[in-house]
């Protein structure tokens, strides 16, 4: 594989950029693979990469219905953080933070990781207490957390509305300085390129139409480009998990919902951090191009449509303007939607299933992007070793039945209903 570097850039510039190799091939599916990963998004490609890198399994196909990076890995708001209270989540996402920090070097692909810090605003004394507790839990798990008072927030984010007559005055914030953003397309492309170079077949425009299971064991899959034999299948299709689950006669603790995001026209640098509203659901950061990247609530009803409705967008942006009054003067550049697996406790599922050789990676709710490396790392372990890694041991499929929920927000089931 060609190495990307400053030197290779100069070299290729002199030859008119005609010497670049393709980043990944377009292979025809083989008859049989050791492992088939369904879903060529961030998680699927990362899983294939770590299977090849950590477990030396390279006879792998990644099957993608559309094109790689066309789903949620290219539709999120690129936020990376590990500011969770519960051990299962905190330790898992902190492993992810370690992988994010070295990802550009690992993948020889500039993913533009920018640890600019995330600031969760608090709007009451009670919320400050809750954040102090969460911050302490984070620090016990080795995650950086700083409680900011109102003046400190004002220094870091002067464009917030600090006037006296706001409905939700800013009392302070919880900050994770090591959190940040990354270029999401580069993450998909970087994993794809490395996986491909190690022998993984990335098969795009290939839809899974069925499974071949006998005696409770995985034998293969049926696709729009022919049948493929395999003993191990990993499902990484968050958003569409319930559709494949139906083919497998499984009912999951998941509903598929629609989440919108949007960007404003580009403006000069004004916001140095990722900032979230504490009295509703709104988050905002500024991209390297200068666009304000914003998102918030789900549309709120079951949906597989990758496009949203205006009432939700209006609701979300009302919160945004309450936080940053200057947003009202900006033009909207783009809005888009993606579909998410909403799990019933708001935490993901990475586990084996009752079918031998079928592994499940789903239920990422709003937070799949930041989990990409840790999800791939632990899911690869789960598939290769046929047992869960200690970091995903809590993300069990049967935890809803046994009562071992990881209810980060303490909201009970249907955490998305507001």
């Amino acid at each position: 594989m060609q190495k990307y570097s400053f030197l290779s850039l100069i070299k290729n510039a002199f030859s008119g950029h005609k010497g670049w190799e393709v980043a990944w091939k377009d292979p025809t599916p083989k008859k049989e693979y050791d492992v088939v990963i369904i879903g060529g998004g961030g998680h699927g490609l990362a899983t294939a990469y770590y299977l090849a890198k950590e477990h030396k399994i390279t006879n792998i196909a990644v099957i993608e219905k559309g094109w790689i990076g066309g789903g949620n890995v290219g539709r999120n708001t690129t936020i990376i953080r590990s500011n969770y209270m519960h051990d299962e989540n905190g330790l898992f996402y902190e492993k992810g933070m370690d992988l994010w920090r070295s990802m550009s070097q690992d993948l020889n692909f500039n993913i533009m990781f920018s640890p600019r810090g995330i600031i969760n605003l608090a709007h009451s004394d009670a919320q400050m207490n809750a954040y102090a507790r969460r911050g302490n839990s984070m620090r016990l798990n080795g995650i950086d957390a700083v409680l900011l008072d109102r003046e400190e927030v004002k220094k870091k984010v002067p464009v917030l509305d600090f006037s006296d007559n706001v409905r939700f005055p800013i009392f302070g914030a919880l900050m994770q300085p090591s959190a940040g953003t990354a270029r999401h397309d580069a993450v998909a492309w970087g994993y794809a390129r490395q996986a491909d170079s190690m022998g993984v077949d990335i098969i795009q425009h290939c839809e899974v139409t069925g499974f071949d299971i006998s005696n409770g064991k995985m034998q293969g899959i049926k696709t729009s480009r022919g049948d493929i034999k395999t003993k191990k299948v990993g499902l990484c299709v968050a958003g569409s998990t319930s559709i494949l689950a139906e083919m497998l006669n499984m009912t999951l603790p998941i509903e598929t919902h629609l989440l919108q995001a949007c960007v404003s026209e580009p403006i000069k640098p004004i916001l140095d951090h990722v900032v979230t509203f504490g009295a509703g659901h709104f988050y905002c950061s500024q991209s390297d191009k200068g666009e304000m990247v914003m998102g918030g609530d789900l549309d709120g009803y079951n949906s597989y449509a990758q496009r949203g409705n205006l009432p939700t967008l209006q609701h979300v942006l009302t919160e945004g303007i309450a936080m940053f009054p200057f947003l009202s003067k900006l033009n909207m550049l783009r809005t888009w939607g993606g579909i998410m697996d909403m799990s019933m406790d708001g935490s993901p599922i990475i586990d084996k299933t009752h079918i031998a050789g079928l592994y499940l990676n789903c239920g990422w709710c709003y937070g799949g992007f930041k989990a990409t490396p840790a999800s791939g790392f632990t899911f690869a372990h789960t598939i290769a070793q046929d047992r869960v890694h200690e970091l995903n041991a809590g993300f069990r499929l049967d935890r809803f039945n046994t009562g071992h929920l990881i209810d980060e927000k303490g909201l009970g089931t249907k955490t998305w209903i507001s």
Partner: protein
Amino acid sequence: MLYIKCPHCGLRSQNEFAYGGDASVKRPELNKEISDQEWDEFVYLRKSPRGKHLELWHHVSGCRQWIKVLRDTSTHEIFNTYKSEEKVG
């Protein structure tokens, strides 16, 4: 914008409604021994189909009645709406 025809009030915008989830889910019977599996199915497990979905909506900023809506989850098309006690044929 979705427009939902409330069987009591007529066609209204989605702003007046709150979503209540899958209407085909049945609570286990009262005064009966209920297994963990049955609770699991009632509380957590959902079919979440792509296509026709019978669901509950609450006309919370209107007549405050719960209604059933038959809607397509991939196109958002609404086929029919029903009163909560109405049989869906």
